[in-house]
């Protein structure tokens, strides 16, 4: 047994890698099929400018989904991301439009305050659900309202606009057709992937999602890890808020309604288990892309608004069913 083991490491590594690739490939294939369908049925789908559009449109959901992946991996859920995004945006918007700040200072301070706002809500979500052992579904349902109310209170329900022109221009800049905003999201994907697969922290998060008690009895402070997962999610929301402002040049307390559902959908389509412990950031990236491609392609196809909504719903369900089959396939 040992001798055969020792002689096989290279081959074995290949086998595991293939298995991992196979897992992701299922979602990747689904994405490719969608792209294939839309590029044959519509005229403009595969044009450079449309690809730029799709990437822009995917960005915010992708960033929220990265954070959501951390929370769902530990078996939690964060329903507050849309509201917290609005809160972070109006805080950042207020800071950015403070009189007497030079544009670059204003942007930096605004970014910091957005991320700080997100982290604060993440800490709150994590602390309450971990300390009092309350399902995060309920806790974040509460903070969903708190953040939305706070955003309305801060702005007195008004929209903030007129950000520095350079910030505004940054939002629509591209590099070889790739929006800068999307590149930021990709960097976050890389960081998320690294943290989840290469660090002790990531390992323990997966462990908590699978068997919290075993992880606790193995001497890990589950409490801190849970708070950390929600805090990361909050931080991601803060970044998402700044990206939103750069893209649309406004910050309003009523933005982000329903964003949490899109983020959850991207994570689940990406193969992360809603009960925790299984999933990946790469899957989430593909899941967000599927949602973005679908939204874009269906408009190009000229389908009615209501048909679009129905088809999006079907695709979410089909993706999750396919994931079940893929799971069986890779297990056998």
């Amino acid at each position, binding site marked *: 047994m040992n001798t055969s083991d020792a002689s096989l490491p290279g081959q074995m590594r290949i086998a595991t890698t293939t298995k991992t690739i196979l897992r992701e490939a299922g979602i990747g294939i689904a994405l490719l099929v969608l792209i294939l369908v839309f590029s044959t049925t519509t005229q403009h789908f595969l044009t450079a400018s449309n690809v730029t559009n799709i990437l822009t449109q995917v960005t915010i959901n992708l960033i929220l989904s990265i954070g959501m992946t951390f929370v769902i991996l530990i078996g939690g859920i964060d329903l507050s991301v849309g509201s917290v995004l609005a809160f972070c945006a109006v805080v950042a918007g207020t800071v950015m439009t403070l009189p007497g700040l030079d544009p670059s200072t204003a942007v930096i301070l605004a970014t910091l305050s957005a991320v700080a706002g997100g982290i604060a809500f993440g800490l709150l979500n994590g602390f309450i659900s971990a300390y009092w052992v309350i399902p995060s579904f309920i806790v974040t349902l509460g903070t969903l309202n708190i953040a939305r109310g706070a955003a309305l209170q801060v702005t007195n329900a008004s929209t903030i606009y007129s950000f520095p022109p350079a910030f505004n221009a940054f939002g629509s800049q591209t590099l070889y057709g790739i929006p800068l905003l999307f590149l930021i999201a990709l960097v976050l994907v890389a960081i998320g992937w690294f943290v989840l697969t290469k660090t002790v922290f990531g390992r323990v998060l997966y462990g908590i999602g699978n068997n919290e008690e075993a992880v*606790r009895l193995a001497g890990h402070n589950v409490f801190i890890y849970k708070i950390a997962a929600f805090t990361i999610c909050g931080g991601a929301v803060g970044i998402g808020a700044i990206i939103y402002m750069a893209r649309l040049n406004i910050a309003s307390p009523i933005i982000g309604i329903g964003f949490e559902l899109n983020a959850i959908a991207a994570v689940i389509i990406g193969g992360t288990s809603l009960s925790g412990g299984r999933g990946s950031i790469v899957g989430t990236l593909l899941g967000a892309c599927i949602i973005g491609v679908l939204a874009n392609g269906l408009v190009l196809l000229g389908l009615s608004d209501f048909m679009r909504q129905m088809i999006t719903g079907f695709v979410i369900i089909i993706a999750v069913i396919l994931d079940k089959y893929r799971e069986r396939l890779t297990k056998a």
Partner: protein
Amino acid sequence: MIENSSSPIKSVEPLLQLSGVAKRFGGVVALNGVSFDLRPGEVHALVGENGAGKSTLIKILCGILQRDAGTIMLGGVPYDPHTPGDAKLAGIQVVHQEFNLLPYLSVAENICFEDLPRNRFGIVDRRILHERARKALDSIGLADVDVRRPVASLGVAHRQLVEIARALMGESRILVLDEPTATLTARETKRLFAIIAALKAKGVAIAFVSHHLNEVFEICERVTVLRNGQSVMTCDISQTTPDQLVSNMVGRQLAAAMAATREVDKSGRTALSLHQLRHPASPNESGVSFDLHYGEMLGIAGLVGSGRTELLRSIFAADIPQSGSLDRDGKKVSYRNPKDAIADGIGFVTEDRKEEGLILDMPIAANVTLANLKAVSRYGLLNKRDEIKLTRELGADIKLKYGRPQDNASTLSGGNQQKVVLAKWLANNPRILLLDEPTRGVDVGAKAEIYALLRALADKGLALLVVSSELPELITLCDRILVMSNHRIAGELERQDFSEERILNFAYKDERSHEYQ
């Protein structure tokens, strides 16, 4: 090797007949030609190491899995269940090793779940429901359980009996019992055997899966031994011996290893002293006090619910003790959580592998390093090469049988899963190991290996505290045994005084005084 010796009930046609049944999972052969038959009114034991194919065979019988080859005849006609429902319709009832109860429903609802009595408005008729459940429980002698209680509030032994009562609700021709006594105390086991005898008299054929050969010899007519997915032996119980069964099961003689005794060095320093340590759920205000020495294997015996697991949990700070104190190497310590206990050189092999010990859906390597991630990481970054190396080393030390370190722990047999739990703590180089039922659901071969391993650890100077419901296990392994009853130490036995009767006497002491009250 297959002996179809003449049977005392030879004229009886087999009710169920399997021949050449095979099943593979991907590249793994689980069953490779199993032949086996069941006659009406007999109790037929199925024995074999974990991983020998018993669970797969049962799953095929009850329609959870489909066979790849072979034939199954039930009452003379081909039997090919595709769902558990098919099996139930055909009159085959299975009591699984893992509980299939709904914890927050009442005992009555669980027992009658498959056929809830309804009144004419389609609403569950509670009166009939409770009557039926009462009857079912009474028939297996569980008169002391209120059928309205939620299952979650029952102890593990009672849950097992409720599970059996539920299986008996259906009209069954064949009853398969998978390790029914694993969680039962001696008294409850007796009760179960009486039920089995009654069913036998009614002509029900019973397949009885057990690791306890004494039980097999007590109640079974015939026995079939499985090894590596094959049936290697079938014969009348009267024509075989436990030694013969064991050697057929493992294919090698283990008796020596099982029976070996150990020279004990009693001069070892005290590793741990408990002073009136009291678990929050313990009714005993004066708690538990004793010393544990390095190099010592100290056993904890007692009935289910006597506070054994709670004792270990309060030492490990899995539950914070309500009162009392703990000295470690003579110094007073107070752990706030398992992390503190682990840092102080303590490991805890929990009773329930699936709930508390293992992360089944994560790789073996990840399980092995879970309690000591520092050893395989730097600056918080995992070194997967080190992790795999450590897993291979420890795996070799404890004779772990596995595919690759990257495989999920769920791919292992019960015995090997338990070894992974042990490896997790050994990776941490502990000085004290707390073990709760270290061989629960583990086959004979792995059991012997685990015994040898624990002995080697004690010889290396570790202090071991072993909780077990299997008295022979404690008697074989330990240097000293404490008997718990109602959350207090009811008695202490030195090696020369070990006997099952003495242990049971202490264990039932409180119990009896309760009954008289």
